């Protein structure tokens, strides 16, 4: 198991966003985290990435306990993420956004960048080439010099995934990657993620509302409701499960 969540609870004041949740993700698996609004999915991501400290329980990545590590250290261990509300660097070009993913992998120092040592030039060249390759993979290299915010919603989502891949992760966390996309874009993205799993050697943990997308994409799903696990298993079985149906119906009523 590459990722193990053990008895994690997260309280915000009086509210428990996650209650005693455990699950494991196998290497190269595409694992879906689903559930109605406010179920605690994004909170789970924030715990894995170190943005939140769990109230109790532990996060284990490749047999190492991550609790207490700073988010920028956890990325370096090989966990990258995208955000539910796209968070690209708005003043920067698409290419620069992806280059940021290489920040901690670049081997030149502050003085070398000022004096423009040969190593500076070769390293910059290396990461620019690599960034363009990743952008190309997502069909975005033609937009490399555009400002990220000038792109369409679906394109921005792809740039965010490209940026996360630039950190060279083993585990990729995608928070609603298909949100705001039309059905054909959604399907294309699903295929792209499946392909990327092989080409980038990835394990993927994905949050998604669109059940068709989840069905197409995920090997396994975990359904959360009010912070509690109500189902774990195959996506096709999840949509048959009475408790899952009830949770989603409740959600529809609230909307």
């Amino acid at each position: 198991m590459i990722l193990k969540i053990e008895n994690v609870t997260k309280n915000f004041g009086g509210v428990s966003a996650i209650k005693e949740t455990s699950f494991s993700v196998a290497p190269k698996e595409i694992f879906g985290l689903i559930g109605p609004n406010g179920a605690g999915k994004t909170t789970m991501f924030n715990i894995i990435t170190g943005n939140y400290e769990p109230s109790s329980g532990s996060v284990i990545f490749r047999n190492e306990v991550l609790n207490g590590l700073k988010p920028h250290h956890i990325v370096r261990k090989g966990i990258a993420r995208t955000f539910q509300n796209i968070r690209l660097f708005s003043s920067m070009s698409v290419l620069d956004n992806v280059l940021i993913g290489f920040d901690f992998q670049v081997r030149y120092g502050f003085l070398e960048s000022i004096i423009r040592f040969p190593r500076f030039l070769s390293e910059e060249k290396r990461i620019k080439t690599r960034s363009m390759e990743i952008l190309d993979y997502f069909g975005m290299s033609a937009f490399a010099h555009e400002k990220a915010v000038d792109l369409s919603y679906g394109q921005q989502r792809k740039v965010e995934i490209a940026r996360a891949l630039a950190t060279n992760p083993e585990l990729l966390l995608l928070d609603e990657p298909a949100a705001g996309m039309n059905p054909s874009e959604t399907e294309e993205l699903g295929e792209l993620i499946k392909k990327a799993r092989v080409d980038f050697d990835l394990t993927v943990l994905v949050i998604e509302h669109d059940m068709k997308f989840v069905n197409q994409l995920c090997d396994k799903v975990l359904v959360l409701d009010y912070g509690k696990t109500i189902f774990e298993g195959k996506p096709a079985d999840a949509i048959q499960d009475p408790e899952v149906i009830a949770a989603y119906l409740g959600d529809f009523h609230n909307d």
Partner: protein
Amino acid sequence: MQAMINKHFLIKVGMILGTVWFIWFANGHFDEYTVRILNNIAIFVILAVSYNLINGVTGQFSLEPNGFVAIGAYVTALLLISPDAKSYQYAIADPYPFVMTLQSNFVVALLLSGLLAMLLALVLSFPVFRVRGDYLAIVTLGFGFIIKILAINHPEVTNGSLGLNDIPEFSNLYWTGGLAIVAVVVILNIVNSKFGRAMKAVRDDEDAAIAMGVNTFKAKTLAFCTSAFFEGVGGGLLAALLTSISPDLFDFFFTFQLLIIIVLGGLGSTTGAIIGTVLVMGGSEWMRFLDEPMNLFGYETTAMPGMRMVVFSLVLIFIMLFAREGVMGKRELTDLFKSRKKGGK
């Protein structure tokens, strides 16, 4: 791609050579008054581009320049004033013995000015950047006041409110202009490296930057310390230009002037900081008449010192309300040469 890099490179080399030629020409052909203004502009270019690094590029609202410029000015002054000149100017209290022995050449004085300012910036970074939140502005504002009060209250070193005089006039256009070129090149090289990208990422979205593995504490600290270094050097140049300094020179007003410069030029743009400097310093000379008594339609007004500052404050308010981007926005000169071709469809 390769062609574009070469084009940018040629533009940069051309700009540097043009500036060097201008410095040489101005030094030989312009009158003393004009050369003095150019010296001021060159020093303020150093200060503005470095202030812009922390404020504009990294997006950390800071009010530090007057404090670090004061440090640099005092260090350089103490190292340059001859023991002879020191021996008669301490009127408030006798100087400490070590003050009499401080002595170095101009290069070492400027370097030490920058390094001491940088060291203090590093010390400030730990409490300020370790926590999230906008403490930097308050801390740097307080820091400026503390430096000023220290300068007033330690006449054994600084000669108190009388200030230090008879600083040898080592600054000339070659020094100020030359170091302005160095400062601009160094800062542009930082901005166009992974360090500059990290700084911009911090400005745009700090959480996303952290999520990409950026050490945001380091990015902010590097920006702040680099700013402080050049502000220290700029302070040293200023001391050796003015030949006398006093605590009043380095009050908040000094920082405010730089704030107007970088906002006018476009926060985040190094080119903008240079343009802003020329506009504000040049405009300031041009508007000198405003501070003097005027004859308006036969009506004599009395002298109103500070009138220019009122105008600049109004300009600042106007920009903040109606023209947020300033002259350049976040763009650089080289961006204006880029072909405006849009990416494929």
